[in-house]
């Protein structure tokens, strides 16, 4: 059946069309909506590239949570007074930029057309390393994330914490320790409250399922954590909960739990199994799931805090 090439061409042109709309839309809101739609289309492309885990992450984090971040930012920016009118650049400058962009794109395209054949692959090495360490999971990406490249994943969790600290430190000095501004200013509105009350429990269950089944099937800690974060954000948007104060103990514990457990496991591995981040082979799978559970908690705490923004002293 050869309908798939047509599907690929249609998908590619759709993606490029929506990307052009995102760049050339007049208003910020239209542009952000275009970006969210673009992210969902990109998830399709990832499925065609046999990458369901990446498709899940792109749909959840790349398009979903980033869309919420940008829309909230646009609203807060629009609420500021004195937004200066933007000066549009001249035609010559636009032409020059277009030429530059075309050059960069063609260079990248030439690289893609000249990729080495037969293609090199790290798959056998990663599989051998994971199997040798007893972490031969059904999902090779989880094995790579948690065993072959566990240091990278732990450092990435620390980057998330640094981002939260960075966002918090942008707030005014007087506001340190207070809570960020609520995600919506209005009083609770019944359909939104209904959505949050119905969606949040189901979404949390699905998130935990995606995390748990990520050991053997597409899924994993990042996707599950992003879903849990989205459920918390829906609850905050319905005003059923408000962003917590940034000096609350439980929030800081939740944020730090993931990287801390990861680091402690790595150091313990140095003592128990002989190398930094080596797991004892018979216990590798339970340890990986244990670490991933705390990673889910940290991601679910960090992403909404990144969207909520710096603490503000608004008396709300």
């Amino acid at each position: 059946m050869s309908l798939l090439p047509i599907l690929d061409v249609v998908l590619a042109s759709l993606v490029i069309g929506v990307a052009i709309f995102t760049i050339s839309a007049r208003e910020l809101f239209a542009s952000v909506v275009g970006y969210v739609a673009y992210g969902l289309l990109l998830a399709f492309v990832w499925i065609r590239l046999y990458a369901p885990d990446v498709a899940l992450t792109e749909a959840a984090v790349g398009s979903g949570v980033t869309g919420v971040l940008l829309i909230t930012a646009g609203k807060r920016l629009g609420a500021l007074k004195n937004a200066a009118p933007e000066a549009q650049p001249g035609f010559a400058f636009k032409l020059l930029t277009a030429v530059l962009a075309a050059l960069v794109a063609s260079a990248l395209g030439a690289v893609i057309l000249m990729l080495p054949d037969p293609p090199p692959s790290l798959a056998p090495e990663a599989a051998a390393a994971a199997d040798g360490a007893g972490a031969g999971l059904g999902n090779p990406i989880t094995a790579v994330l948690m065993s072959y490249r566990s240091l990278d994943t732990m450092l990435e969790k620390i980057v998330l914490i640094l981002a939260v600290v960075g966002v918090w430190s942008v707030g005014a000095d007087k506001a340190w320790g207070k809570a960020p501004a609520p995600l919506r200013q209005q009083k609770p509105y019944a359909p939104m409250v209904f959505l949050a009350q119905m969606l949040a429990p189901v979404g949390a269950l699905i998130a935990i399922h995606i995390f748990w089944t990520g050991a053997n099937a597409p899924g994993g800690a990042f996707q599950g954590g992003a879903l849990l974060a989205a459920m918390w954000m829906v609850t905050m948007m319905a005003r059923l909960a408000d962003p917590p104060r940034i000096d609350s103990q439980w929030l800081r514990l939740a944020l730090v739990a993931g990287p801390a457990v990861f680091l402690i496991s790595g150091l313990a591995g140095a003592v128990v199994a002989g190398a930094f981040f080596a797991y004892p082979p018979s216990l590798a799978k339970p340890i990986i799931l244990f670490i991933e559970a705390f990673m889910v908690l940290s991601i679910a705490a960090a992403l909404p805090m990144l969207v909520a923004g710096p603490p503000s002293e608004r008396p709300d």
Partner: protein
Amino acid sequence: MTPSVLAGLTGAALVGFGLYGLILHPHPLRKLLAFNLMGSGVFLVFGIVARRGAVAGSRFDPVPQAMVITGIVVAFAASAIAVALILRLSAESSHVTLDPEVWTKPNDGTTK
């Protein structure tokens, strides 16, 4: 043209569009959007490298895909910091722009 090559060329085109939008748009949030577009184009190129790394037994090479997953989350974290900085800058300078010549006009002394 295999799906991988098509997706890779799409990624290259997206990097071009993103670069165009990043340089041209005066509004900081639009620049951030274009930057995210560039980032997703780069991730697509990673994706085709992963797909081409298929060996006997698996349909893809998991290492680049793991890097893309990590990259998507880190790109979101960077966008969040950028948004926080843009919002604070706009609140302090009362102008929504990254053009330094607009900021140097004297402020009224009202701070947030």
